[in-house]
């Protein structure tokens, strides 16, 4: 039953390390400008990392970016004006969203 747990742990860790570096995704955060349900796309105006008291989610950069959300895991449905945090992969010129967090609506800090 407990033949050699250390051995199995080391093997597991080794395997994990082998596959590990392949996982990475970009993250962006910003104000939702539009959601297109037909094309399954979503556009945000990106925010920067300058968090202040009156702008807790960062300041607008003026740069818009569009994401393909067909396969994304979406929490509270985004609507115009929500602050979203999106993890995405870049394939060619397209940004494929993996997860979409509705930062302003779910506001974890209050839970």
């Amino acid at each position, binding site marked *: 039953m407990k033949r050699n747990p250390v051995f199995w742990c080391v093997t597991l860790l080794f395997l994990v390390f082998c596959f590990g570096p392949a996982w990475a995704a970009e993250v962006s955060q910003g104000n939702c400008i539009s959601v297109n349900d037909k094309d399954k796309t979503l556009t945000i105006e990106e925010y920067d990392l300058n968090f202040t008291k009156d702008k807790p989610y960062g300041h607008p950069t003026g740069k818009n970016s569009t994401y393909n959300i067909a396969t994304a895991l979406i929490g509270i449905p985004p609507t115009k004006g929500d602050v979203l945090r999106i993890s995405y992969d870049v394939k060619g010129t397209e940004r494929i969203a993996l997860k979409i967090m509705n930062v302003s609506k779910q506001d*974890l800090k209050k839970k």
Partner: protein
Amino acid sequence: MEHSFWYLHMPIAGVEIFWPGLVLIGFSVGTIGGFFGMGGAWMVTPGLNILGFPMAFAIGTDIAHIAGKSMISTMRHSKFGNVDYKLGFVMLFGTMFGIEIGAQMIMWLERLGKVGPIVRWVYVGFLAMISFMVFYDYYKADQAKKAGRISGDKGAEGITWYKALHKINIPPMVHFKTAGFTCSAWLPIGVSFITGILAGFLGIGGGLLRMPALVYLIGCPTHIAVGTDLFEVMISGLYGAFTYTLKGRIELVAVFVMLTGAAIGAQIGTVATKYAKGYGIRIAFGCAVVACMVSIILKQYGIDVMAAVVILGAISALCVYIVSIMFKGAAAELRDKKERERAAAAFQN
């Protein structure tokens, strides 16, 4: 700069946490748990929540740190043969299923946006029960002492519910060799299922309920119950950590910080038991539980800073008390030892 030094950014929950508070909670749960022998995890979930973790993250982080802590104590107990592995494995089904249900309930409450208040109020009830138990226990011991009875009544021998429960004949009937009884497998599974739900819901080890259930409902000898309970705490911690991580409600940084504090604290706490005398410390323990309860209520009504001050103040006061017992006792022991050695050396010369 001043502000950011004291606050650690938690990348997943996205909150800034007052890290000395985190270290203090870890250390306290180790010290108090080591000293009193009961988990102490009851202060972690509320404590983390008060420090600023969202409730689901507080529970997930708490249950993961239990997994880490219980690894070593289970290994120690299994060395003494105190674990009935067969019973442990049968209970494993109930425990894991129960934890999953508890965790699902939390996720469901989170979706409804009710997780914070509901878990906080359940905790208030839970801590009220613990403090009542502690004070009542003290009161009874005090009465017994006044009445001149030696070592208060245990009252444990009279309960034989398990004899009736063993008669339930629903297959499969299983014989547990180490614990030394035969019963329907559904009995331990049922017990572990209920404790599992509680553990998954509150982010605790569940020993508080599982221990008496093992002894009185299942009919385990006490030393086997202790070992098997620890085994079950480990399993529930590991599975809880896994399922809460899978649900994305864990903060690894916090788990490691707390685990380090807890490991150091546990040593101090267990050593301190050697030197502790009297029942007075239990009153201090009860007071800490009440303080924890009060701080949860404060948090519920949005008085966050006060809540943090109350809970951190109470547990650090109790810790200082235990640490001082340990250092005084240890210093006395080492002094005695040195004197004995000196005397022996003088005798030989």
